[in-house]
């Protein structure tokens, strides 16, 4: 299989000219990533900020007010309604609150007696399991704090056997954008390189211009590389644009050696382009390409790449799907480049994975196209 660079370049120029004429697609290709990045950066988060709670205080004594104040002081709870007549189950049904506290009338009596325990009831909306878990954790911590405050008032020698010193590394301010931003970079550029490449390949078949290519002296490999190079360039332009945008809007920039993520981007876009050509060469219509690309390249990357939902929670039986998604490996690189800054020591594995995936996708597309003749 001889590869003649001149022919590849000619192919590339032809594809780019054709793309330049299709104004709508070109605008979408360069404009959509900009919109998507902002959307991902600001809308995607699993963090629990302000928990809306309702409190039905049936005791109405200083102690119960102190108990409520403890919740207020944490700055994590936002008390929507409080008082003796608040109907907690109703508020939960309506979704106005994420949790409700019920302080019983005998709260103060039980609190004063030894051998007795006051009970406070916490009702949590479990529809969102993650939020519910976090709410439960915060509430029990707040409860513990109240108890501790009550006891330290009267007592003296309170020593904890173990005290814990926690340090949060790499992102001490716990900013979500530091985590979501680099991931969003990977997802926003996942869509268009395969989509454009797939559409161009399928268009040749749909309009039968592929027959002219077959009749020419162009080889399958040259045809494949020429097409890939054109959309690879578009993809790299997208990478540049979204990186600039992320710097402007999210304020994220390389913290360490940028070479792994640069090499990674080159490979990542290559993966996307070859995958698109593979899908395009198998589809009969352009709309079938759009469907298959939006599901395999976009939706799967968005949800199974570890962008927001951790990959380690995917059941083992289907985790291999995540492993063959290029975005899953590329996200590791962008996160390292923008937040951790370790460099090649930890980055060579994802880079290697991208090399393997790119070669696999190249082979798949090549096998489909190398014959260069009309199939029965």
């Amino acid at each position, binding site marked *: 299989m001889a590869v003649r660079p001149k022919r590849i370049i000619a192919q590339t120029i032809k594809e780019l000219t054709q793309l330049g004429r299709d104004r709508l697609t070109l605008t*979408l290709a360069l404009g959509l990533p900009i919109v998507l990045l902002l*959307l991902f950066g*600001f*809308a995607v*988060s*699993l*963090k*629990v900020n302000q928990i809306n709670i309702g409190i039905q205080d049936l005791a109405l004594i200083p102690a119960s007010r102190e108990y409520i104040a403890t919740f207020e002081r944490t700055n994590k709870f936002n008390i929507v309604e409080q008082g003796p007549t608040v109907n907690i189950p109703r508020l*939960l049904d*309506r*979704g106005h609150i994420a949790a409700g506290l019920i302080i019983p009338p005998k709260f103060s009596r039980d609190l004063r007696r*030894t051998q007795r*325990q*006051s009970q*406070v*009831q*916490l009702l949590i909306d*479990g*529809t969102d*399991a*993650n*939020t519910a*878990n976090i709410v*439960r*954790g*915060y509430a*029990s911590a707040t*409860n*513990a704090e109240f*108890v501790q405050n009550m006891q330290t008032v009267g*007592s003296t*020698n*309170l*020593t904890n*056997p*173990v*005290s*814990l*010193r*926690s*340090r*949060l*590394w*790499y992102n001490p301010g716990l900013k979500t954008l530091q*985590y979501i931003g680099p991931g969003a970079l990977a997802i926003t550029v996942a869509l268009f390189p395969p989509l454009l490449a797939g*559409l161009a390949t399928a268009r040749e078949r749909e309009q039968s211009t592929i027959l002219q290519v077959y009749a020419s002296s162009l080889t399958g490999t040259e045809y494949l590389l020429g097409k890939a190079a054109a959309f690879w360039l578009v993809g790299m332009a997208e990478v540049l644009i979204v990186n600039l945008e992320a710097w402007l809007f999210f304020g994220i920039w390389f913290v360490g050696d940028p070479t792994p993520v640069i090499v990674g981007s080159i490979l990542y876009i290559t993966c996307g382009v070859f995958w698109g050509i593979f899908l395009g060469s198998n589809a009969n219509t*352009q*709309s079938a390409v*759009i*469907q298959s690309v*939006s599901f395999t390249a976009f939706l799967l990357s968005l*949800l*199974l790449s570890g962008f927001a*939902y*951790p990959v*380690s929670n*995917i059941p083992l039986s*289907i985790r291999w799907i995540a492993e063959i998604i290029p975005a899953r490996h590329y996200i590791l690189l962008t996160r390292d480049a923008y937040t951790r800054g370790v460099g090649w*020591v*930890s980055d060579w594995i994802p880079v290697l994975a991208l090399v393997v995936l790119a070669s696999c996708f190249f082979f798949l597309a090549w096998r489909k196209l190398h014959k260069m003749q009309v199939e029965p």
Partner: protein
Amino acid sequence: MIDLIDTILGSRFWALFQKEFAQILRNRQLLIQLLVPPTVFLILFGMALDPNIKNLKVGITDYSNSRISREFIEVFNQTDAFVVSKYYADQPDMTADLATGKLNVGITIPPEFSRDIARRRTAQVQALFDAVDANTATTASSYVSQLVEDYNQRRSEQNSFSQQYSSSSSTIGNSSSQQKANSLTGNSFSQSSQRNQVKLVTSVFYNPGLDSAWFIVPGIIGVLLTTIGSQAAGSLVVREKEAGTIEQLMMTPASTTEVLLAKISPLLILLTFNMLVGLVVGRLVFGMPFQGNLLLLLSIAIIYFWVGISIGILIASYAKSEQQSQLIAFFVNPPLVLLSGAMYPISSMSTFVQGLTYLNPLRYFVEVCRGIILKGVGLEVLWSQVLVLLLFATVLMTLSIRQFRQQLT
């Protein structure tokens, strides 16, 4: 009554409806596209999208290396949020692994740990968290402090301190089996019988097992119906435009509204069927209950389908070809999906973005789905959402019909 049926069967609408229905049934690709991906994606995402924190890798450098320190390390085995993955002889080795992401948490126990404990002085333990993922780090650090609190309490009870406080939690982490076991009765927390105790009795409503699939599945149903509805409607209309047959349709005595209504009705039937498939999958694969009224859900769903389909027609009226309409849909659908709370909770978004979600019809439909499916509430709670959906449906429908008409003339 018979008259009524006769007028319906004899009407132009009925004839067009039959034509459209036959056309859809003949269109294999569209049928497959309407029925297969929703099922696959429901199962896939229901299984895979789990935000809970499980199996975080803990590394331990134990300089004390005593019976007491090993007993302390045991606390990490009490929950399936953590897995002790490796022991280190030196802290720098551990921090190197933390840097490369092989560990999520690094614990260092100092040499004087056992001595301090024995002398009843406060021993210090250091915990390092990889905070690249801020959300996981916050939750992990609160779990670790709860574990240490628990340990302290047990330790103090053994030492029989006179004054002690009680930690109120015994179930830490997301051990779903544990949660399932005591979910209905609320969690009973460990306690000691002393003064000034407050016990927090927790009961989890609507999803007692805290199964995240129950959150995801109703959301994904809404998402799939939006994307599929708008794409299918768009491509049906555009295809007629591309083939040039739309002029023929316009030549018939049928009005534009009748033509569009006839185009939409078969889709409505298919989408309703789609929704039922989604509910059955949720039930069979994830054991998701159906608490509310099925008829109510279906009728609200039909209102919502009008919204989705109108969006599709609106897009189609601007597009010249099928792939153009699909490309424009890429601009419209991601914001609808991301700002709906279907996959990422709205309460986690910033205030400004939360405001934007009120403009999103899918937000209201997802609320309706969760309300009826999981909470079992009815119109008395959901009337406002239904009103908003009705408003969206009317406005978008009018707009799309007008736009479509303008395109033709």
